[in-house]
């Protein structure tokens, strides 16, 4: 942990070398993000609901997903950009050090600019929460926290899977955007609005549903079962599997080379 903090401070120091560029990027990230937000507002300007979900319910789902994604893009950027490490041959350097490889991968890159998105998703989360008609209690607060943590865990897993793919080939890596960006788009809405096939995929293959749909139903009072509260925890399993795969990739890397 202390090593990771060291990495954080090193990256901050590097970033502060270019203050103006940092500020401009921070602002422009804010704008990029506004695009998604704008889409949802436009659509709800024309329609009153989507399969019974109102604008603030959708915004809640949306903010949970973007929070997790942008959080990972800030703090686990090294994993997101893992292909660079492989292509530029710098992964070897990490193997030459007597420390945990995943920690070092995280430390390779920290993207403070995207804190802008984390902030904005939190703002939208607050707006949504203030406008939702929910009777809050300790269970529902817990659910919300688990949703946020689950979202981080899930995106970290997706980043790790995409990184593991780099051990096989770095060709056509753009496909990872289907996994992360695509998933992000799809899971902006409560997955219940989609046809059955999607729901199954988003529950069992890329478990966005466990992060932003099933617990959401509990918060909104559409289901009462307490088991829904803990559904985001399943993402931990997903993370474990993806990390194991990653380690397997590291092994393969050292037997096959690049």
């Amino acid at each position, binding site marked *: 942990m*202390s*090593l990771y903090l*060291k*990495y954080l401070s*090193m990256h901050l*120091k*590097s970033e502060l*070398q*270019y203050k103006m560029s940092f500020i401009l990027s921070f602002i422009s990230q804010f704008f990029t993000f506004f695009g998604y937000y704008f889409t949802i507002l436009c659509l709800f300007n024309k329609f009153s609901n989507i399969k019974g979900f109102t604008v603030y319910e959708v915004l809640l789902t949306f903010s949970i997903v973007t929070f997790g994604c942008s959080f990972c893009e800030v703090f686990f950027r090294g994993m997101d950009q893992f292909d660079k490490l492989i292509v530029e*041959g*710098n992964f*070897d*350097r990490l*193997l*030459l*050090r*007597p*420390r945990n490889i995943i920690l070092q991968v995280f430390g390779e890159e920290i993207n403070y600019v995207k804190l802008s998105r984390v902030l904005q998703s939190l703002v939208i989360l607050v707006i949504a929460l203030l406008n939702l008609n929910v009777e809050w209690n300790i269970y529902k607060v817990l659910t919300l926290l688990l949703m946020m943590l689950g979202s981080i865990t899930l995106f970290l897993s997706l980043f790790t899977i995409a990184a593991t793919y780099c051990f096989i080939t770095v060709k056509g890596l753009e496909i990872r955007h289907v996994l992360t960006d695509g998933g992000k788009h799809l899971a902006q809405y409560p997955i219940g609005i989609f046809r059955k096939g999607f729901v199954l995929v988003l529950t069992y293959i890329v478990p966005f549903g466990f992060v932003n749909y099933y617990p959401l139903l509990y918060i909104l009072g559409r289901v009462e079962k307490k088991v829904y509260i803990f559904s985001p925890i399943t993402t931990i399993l997903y993370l474990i599997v993806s990390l194991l795969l990653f380690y397997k990739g590291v092994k393969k890397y*050292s*037997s*096959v*080379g690049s």
Partner: protein
Amino acid sequence: MSFIEVKHINKTFKVPIREDGKFGAMKSFFNRKYRYINAIQDISFSIKKGEIVGYIGPNGAGKSTTIKILSGILTPDSGSVCIDKMTPWIDRKKYVSEIGVVFGQRSQLWWDIPAIDSFNLLKDIYKISDEEYEKTLNELIELLNLKDIMNIPVRQLSLGNRMKCEIAASLIHKPKILFLDEPTIGLDAVSKKAVRDFIKRINKTNNVTVILTTHDMSDIEALAKRIILIGKGSILYDGTIGKLKKNYDYLRKVKITTKDNIEIKRDYIINQVKIKDEIEFVIDIRKVELSDFIKAISSKISIIDIEIISNDIDDLIVRLYEEYKI
């Protein structure tokens, strides 16, 4: 048993063959064919503690594969490596804290901030105690004369100063073995000398074993007594430079300036070129004494000027490569 013991290591890479044609990419996606490349074959050597060894060979000979195996990044298909009682790729985490690696073409320093920050990070990575760190760092700063450049962002440093910092960074945890991959590439003469002197010095004072790969033969001449020459994945020569010279350095160029014309045919004359007033002979000194040759020639023509050029090590290596057809 020696400090570094490499026995019969092999490594084959599997490279997918790209198929051409319209649906080539599609075809190779479903039915991949592979080509096998023997990067290294049956390589064995041993190195004593405190030795400096030059590991040389043309591009693609298997140098970097060997270095990768020795530094624990790559696992060989067969064979064994034992370094300081460890197998690099098995005891990787423990092993790598005993080695330092410098890739001349890559950097381990953080580009935008001063080198001292990178050193501080390495202190944490290698879990070096404050005391120990302080001591080593001061030593390095003094030896490499880094005092004035430690607090300048790395991107603003000259190539020579950057390389000094790179080397310092790889020694901060006091490794027992130092791998240097083209450490003087792109450096000017002064920096080259500084880097070489430093390598010699830490080798002497700290008894650090140094394995050096380079294309710059003057590096080898200045640093390594022993060279290992590799070509097409196999070791071609392992021994001292002196012995190598004795065996292969038998050609001399003799440039004679004269107004006369002469044509000599002898078996020891390999080549003879005349440009204006200058005749250039290439002779084989195994077959004739140089002085005898000059005597013979001076009896036939009047010599205005004479110059004898001995080969530098580059020519020697080129000839070696030619001889082994690599």
